[in-house]
């Protein structure tokens, strides 16, 4: 696509606050933001636990921590296996009373999930002959939907949504994909709540450690199966090293590609990371579904990474390595570039990147300091709003503008994200979704946005005056053409759909 040739005037600071930093204004929001958009954004950073999702309210009854969520998934899987075995046994009458059959007992039905962990088989019950297909969706689907609901609700309740935007940024930086397997499908939402949200205004090194040892990441990038060749497990079994997690930590999570590490560093780091795994259903290594260190799978001995020797000795070896990588100048540069690209421009101003990198290093990766620096950057307030809202940002902004509000079924929003090419927690690869305007201004994407704007507008029961909505959502900097096109709309629905398609609503 050719370089943007759109007309860009000096952006309105309130629009910058809501669209560049936040999730878009709700109809009454602009009134609250009088005079000091920077101060308003900073106030959001000061609210205690602003990034956290709480379990209050019946809407969140299905939210689980990753450990019970994975246990529920394991239990459902175990039940499926039992059902299958029994169906087989039923097909062979002679086998039904075979010795040992009684021992493989049924556990509570998967339909009763997701609250029943499967630590040990429940007391024996007579096997049911023919397993009937449960009418309830799979437990992973229930969990995914509950997590999606919590995420959308949080987006709708946020005042400006700068901290939510930071959560999405880091969640995409450290992405996992539910397409990987049921463990990730059951725990992707919990992963964001447990490994991203608590640290989004904390230290980068803490987020890094929490992410890399989380079962969702260990499964997504295959480390749970990686075994040190000279470890006890490696010698006993026919398993060995898998370098996927090690490579992506260096390439995507920290240093960045081309920053000087070698294939030898990747392999060495993979050895260091062996043993970081998840406890299985039998609970031999710990609470099933929890993150554990398996000393039996850990490659013994010292290891050299980026020229530094990390002495052998268990879990601390990888922790020390991660701590050093988190502080590496290349990491500061990589993170600074991505943040500036996300919040300022596809080709971020070099000075802005340099300042962010400096703040990152000086404050030992303090992400609150980094967020405050972004707010204070003159470039963030002077650069034209040329980026495109990502699909999630767009859908959130549509909901904030046109409803419905929190506590509504997330099904339609999820379907919109699929159609827009950004299915929730399902990026095409470990580098996450694109953060470039071109990717989201595609022909197909714009056609889908048009369809969505129309569908959203049609669902609003009482639209009011679209011209007033333009003032409430975009404000006085709306272009005369946008104003005119909305004023001329043939219906209120069409007027609202035009507003949701206006460049001022699409760009950020």
């Amino acid at each position, binding site marked *: *696509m*050719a370089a*943007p*040739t*759109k*007309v860009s005037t000096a952006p309105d600071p309130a629009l910058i606050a809501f669209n560049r930093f936040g999730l878009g204004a709700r109809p009454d929001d602009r009134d609250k933001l009088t005079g000091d958009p920077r101060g308003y954004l900073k106030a959001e950073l000061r609210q205690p636990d602003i990034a956290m999702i709480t379990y209050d309210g019946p809407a969140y009854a299905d939210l689980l921590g990753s450990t019970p969520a994975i246990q529920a998934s394991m239990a459902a899987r175990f039940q499926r296996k039992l059902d299958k075995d029994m169906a087989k046994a039923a097909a062979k009458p002679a086998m039904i009373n075979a010795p040992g059959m009684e021992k493989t007992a049924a556990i509570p039905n998967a339909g009763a999930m997701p609250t029943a962990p499967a630590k040990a088989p429940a007391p024996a019950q007579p096997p049911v002959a023919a397993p009937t297909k449960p009418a309830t969706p799979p437990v992973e689907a229930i969990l995914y939907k509950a997590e999606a609901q919590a995420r959308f609700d949080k987006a709708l309740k946020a005042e400006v949504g700068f901290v939510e935007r930071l959560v999405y940024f880091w969640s995409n930086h450290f992405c996992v994909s539910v*397409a990987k397997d049921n463990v990730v499908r059951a725990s992707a939402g919990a992963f964001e709540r447990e490994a991203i949200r608590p640290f989004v205004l904390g230290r980068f090194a803490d987020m890094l450690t929490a992410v890399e040892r989380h079962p969702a990441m260990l499964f997504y990038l*295959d480390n749970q*199966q990686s075994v040190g*060749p000279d470890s006890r497990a*490696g010698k006993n079994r026919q*398993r*060995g*090293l*898998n*370098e*996927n997690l090690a*490579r992506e930590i260096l*390439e995507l999570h920290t240093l960045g*590609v*081309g920053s000087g590490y070698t*294939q030898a560093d990747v392999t060495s780091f993979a050895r260091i990371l062996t043993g970081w795994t998840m406890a299985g259903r039998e609970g031999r290594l710990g609470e099933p579904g929890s993150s554990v260190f398996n000393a039996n799978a850990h490659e013994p001995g010292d290891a050299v990474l980026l020229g530094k020797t990390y002495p052998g000795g268990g879990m601390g070896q990888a922790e020390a390595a991660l701590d050093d990588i988190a502080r590496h100048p290349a990491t500061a540069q990589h993170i600074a570039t991505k943040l500036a690209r996300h919040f300022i421009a596809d080709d971020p101003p070099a000075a802005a990147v340099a300042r962010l990198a400096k703040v990152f290093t000086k404050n030992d990766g303090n992400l609150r300091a980094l967020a405050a620096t972004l707010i204070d950057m003159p470039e963030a307030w002077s650069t034209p709003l040329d980026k495109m809202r990502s699909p999630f940002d767009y859908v959130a902004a549509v909901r904030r503008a046109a409803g419905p509000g929190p506590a509504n079924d997330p099904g339609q929003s999820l379907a919109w994200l*699929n*159609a827009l*090419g950004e*299915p929730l927690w399902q990026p*095409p*690869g470990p*580098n996450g979704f*694109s953060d*470039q305007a*071109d*990717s989201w*201004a*595609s*022909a*197909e*994407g*714009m*056609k*889908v946005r*048009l*369809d*969505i*704007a129309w*569908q959203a507008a049609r669902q609003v029961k009482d639209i009011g005056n679209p011209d007033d909505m333009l003032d409430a959502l975009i404000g006085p900097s709306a*272009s005369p*053409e*946008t104003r005119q*096109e909305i004023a*001329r*709309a*043939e219906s209120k629905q*069409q007027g609202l*759909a*035009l507003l949701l*398609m206006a*460049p001022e609503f*699409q*760009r950020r």
Partner: protein
Amino acid sequence: MNLLCETPHPSRRAVLMTGGALFAWAYMPRFARAADNRDPRLIVVVLRGALDGLSAVGPVGDPDYAGLHGDIALSLTGPHAALPLDSFFAVNPAMPVFARLFKANQAAVVHAAATGYRERSHFDGQDVLESGFSGPGHVATGWLNRALENLPAGDRVATLGGLAVGPSTPLVIRGAAPVLGWAPQSLPEPAGDLAARVLNLYRHRDPVLAVALQKGLDADRMALDDQMGAKAMKPKGGLDSAAGMRQAAQGAARLMSADDGPRVAALAFDGWDTHVNEGGATGRLATLLGGLDGAFEEFEKGLGERWKDTAVVAITEFGRTAQINGTVGTDHGTGTVVLLAGGAIKGGRVIADWPGLKPAQLYQQRDLAPTSDVRAVLKGLLADQFGLSAAVLGDKVFPDSAAVKPMANLVA
């Protein structure tokens, strides 16, 4: 060991044996196309995540293959026997359509191929593969778009533009030449003239969005005009599922078979990064290969009588380790396969200067060593199908690649 692996084909063999010296002759422009009633089409399928070429097309005749690829190695015996292509190579049994086309001389394989990229980052590797530059860092335009851009002014293929399938445009076809975007859609159509009004607003305020939306509307109209109608096109899955691949191919073929439809298309299929439990003749990779095979079938069916002039090429950023890893999968590697299909392809051949699989023959003692350049294959196709000269290909389409000669005679 330099084994030339292809079914006997005198002219082809002669060219390969003599090395690069004879390549230049092949590029007489084919501007007599109208006269011979050819109407060439080119479809590029990008397999993102690095396809294990040794599991797609297994060198079952190589004595070291089974040992390296272990439990997932293809074999000519057993319940899921691979489908032999010649005396040395066999294709994964998940690809019966490809095997059939191969027998009908409408499919070919280039083995032990790689781009010029020798690191192992997916994302840089994909950028190199799709941008056509010799190194990473060029993400504005792709080689397929630049090929269109460099056709003679007024050329019909250039005028009709390209087609990008999927919710986002693959880099390979991004650039200045016009590209139509299309993906299966399922949302209700806006009523009235909303689209026209939004377009009018964009034309005044945001020309970039105006162009994008106009193209999106055009593509949708073309796809829906078909007799199969909208109902048949409900999304069945993402482009990392077998059903999704098949459906994407179906839609692309329909758009491309139209007389005034695009002659060039790009599709991207995800999910080939098989680090764990890759599977061989069955399993995860086989499922994906089955999806790709389904896509070949849809292209063949959908293009109908135009299939005879069509070339489909499937490419991936790099291959995977020759030896399976500790988790019955494979890690990022180097050499892999390029799959070619279509009535235009001079098929029935596995084109390979086989490097061997002994430790010293492997690239960095770990990967299938590359002996063919993917760019040579792509250049050959662009030259044969659209008459692009070696000079333009080496300078504009694949910058700084004059040393990589177009592979001759890929097209029948």
